[in-house]
């Protein structure tokens, strides 16, 4: 399945042309490299042009792009080794949250991430990346494992929202989100969160109460899906693009508002055009944060995390 957004169409047309030319050249043994180079230059110019003027809504589409790399893709591309661990030890094992023990550039660490599915079957299995209470409880179990064995924690956030279904409500989805944040605030090991794609409200912040919060360039982070916001604000879910503007849900906005620590650049054309390069950017950004955080004592790590979130908020003080 291919999903081509409006703004991606001309690029995709060029890419088809390049591919055709290449095949032709190979079949006929002709040298078409000059033509190809020219088309590629054209593609590059076009990409630059388009990506220089992305609207927030374009970012929403990119963050949800079905070819965008997911948590396990990053883990595979970034880590020297990874062993997935399973289960909340309370009766459930939520496939929407993955986690385990990884080696990353000299660090041993615990990784916990939200995982969407690539094909229809996996998407259903992983509930489209919408974690249930047991997902957050699995995460907490792994956070506590990290604390016990003094391992840093990396969380990879990519979820439209926590699962809103009746079963999740019955098993305490709200409590699990709150407890997950609380557990993260109690840790005395370094913690880094990366918003990979969709940072969907409570479902995302549950895993993002970290010492450092990074965002990929085209990821979004929002208190409400733009569609939901549009339905409330304009009584029209189709006005999601306007709502996306109003919500300031892009990585740049979050950085400007002082809510995240770093924007990790994506390759030209976004992560799905070059997952390998994107993963390496994430890797080096994470390693840099870990290098910095590793200098702090356990109590200082907890305190830094506390202060980091404690001072978020914009209000006035009456005279």
């Amino acid at each position, binding site marked *: 399945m291919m999903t081509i957004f409006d703004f991606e169409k001309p690029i995709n047309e060029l890419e088809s042309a390049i591919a055709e030319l290449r095949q032709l050249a190979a079949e006929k043994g002709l040298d078409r490299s000059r033509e190809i180079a020219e088309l590629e230059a054209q593609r590059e110019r076009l990409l630059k042009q388009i990506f220089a003027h992305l609207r927030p809504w374009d970012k929403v589409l990119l963050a949800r792009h079905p070819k965008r790399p997911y948590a396990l893709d990053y883990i595979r591309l970034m880590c020297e080794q990874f062993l997935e661990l399973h289960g909340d030890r309370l009766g459930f094992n939520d496939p929407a949250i993955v986690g385990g023990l990884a080696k990353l550039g000299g660090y041993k660490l615990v990784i916990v991430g939200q995982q969407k599915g690539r094909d229809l079957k996996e998407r259903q299995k992983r509930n489209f990346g919408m974690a249930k209470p047991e997902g957050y409880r699995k995460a907490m179990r792994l956070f506590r494992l990290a604390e016990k064995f003094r391992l840093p924690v990396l969380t990879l956030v990519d979820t439209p929202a926590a699962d809103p279904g009746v079963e999740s409500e019955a098993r305490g989805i709200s*409590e699990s989100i709150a407890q997950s944040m609380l557990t993260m605030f109690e840790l005395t090991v370094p913690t880094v969160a990366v918003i990979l794609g969709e940072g969907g409200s409570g479902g995302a912040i549950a895993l993002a109460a970290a010492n450092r919060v990074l965002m990929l360039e085209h990821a979004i982070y929002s208190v409400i899906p733009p569609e939901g916001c549009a339905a409330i604000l304009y009584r029209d879910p189709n006005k999601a693009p306007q709502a996306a503007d109003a919500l300031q849900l892009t990585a740049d906005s979050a950085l400007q508002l002082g809510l995240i620590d770093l924007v990790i650049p994506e390759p030209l054309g976004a992560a799905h055009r070059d997952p390998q390069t994107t993963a390496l950017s994430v890797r080096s950004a994470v390693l840099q944060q870990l290098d910095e955080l590793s200098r702090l004592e356990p109590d200082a790590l907890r305190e830094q995390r506390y202060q980091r979130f404690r001072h978020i908020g914009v209000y006035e*003080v009456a005279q």
Partner: protein
Amino acid sequence: MQRRGAAQANSEQWVQCAKCKKILFRPDFERAMRVCSHCGHHHRLRARERILLTVDPNSFEETDADLRPADPLSFPEYADKLRKGAAASGETEAIITGVAALSGYEIVIGAMDFGFMGGSMGSVVGEKVARCFERGAERRLPVILFCASGGARMQEGLISLMQMAKTTAAVSRLHRAGMPYLAVFTDPTMAGVLASFASLADVILAEPSALVGFAGQRVAAQASPGKPPANFQTAEFQHEHGMIDLIVPRRQIRPTLAYLLEMLLPVEARTR
């Protein structure tokens, strides 16, 4: 009592129950803390009323009353909504906080006001809640919060989502200080408030039939096969599912909180 017309019901003397529609004599209704004497329906209380009904007479001292909402994203219609919320509630934000005495115990107390923008949590609510927990931790006082909220305040965008983390962090301070935190879920306690500080209390009480849940009812039903149970997202549903200690009629909230304070506070706890 005879059923009367709405016009008459809205007079000074009479009031109509929002649930059973019976007409009630207002002085009786107020004396019953706005619980319908016919059907037991718990009508919403203003934050300030709630606090005054809960604490010892003349003991409440408001804190952080000088915090005012800003409009950091210049969000459409937000300034207007703030004005309307203030007019409707008579308050400057969706929570009132302070220190007070309850049954002689010195406490930190907060009550949310659904009348101010649906009790939604933006920067001011988050800040005042966080200060409650910090004040409790520093001064070694218990914290009691009455929740009433539709969730995070969309109009402050990601900043309001961050208030979930901020208030949760503050809870961890009180926990480490070993001071009790008691929450009372009133109608409604939802979404971003339920999924942060509200659910982290040591003991959780709720008023009968209060709406308590994560997502909107329609979203929840759409996301699930089959029909939700009849009491879905009520306090009673959450109690059955282990998330609420006790459903407590309004009249019993105060004595129940007093007993919990007596049980959980160290003997040397400050009284006044």
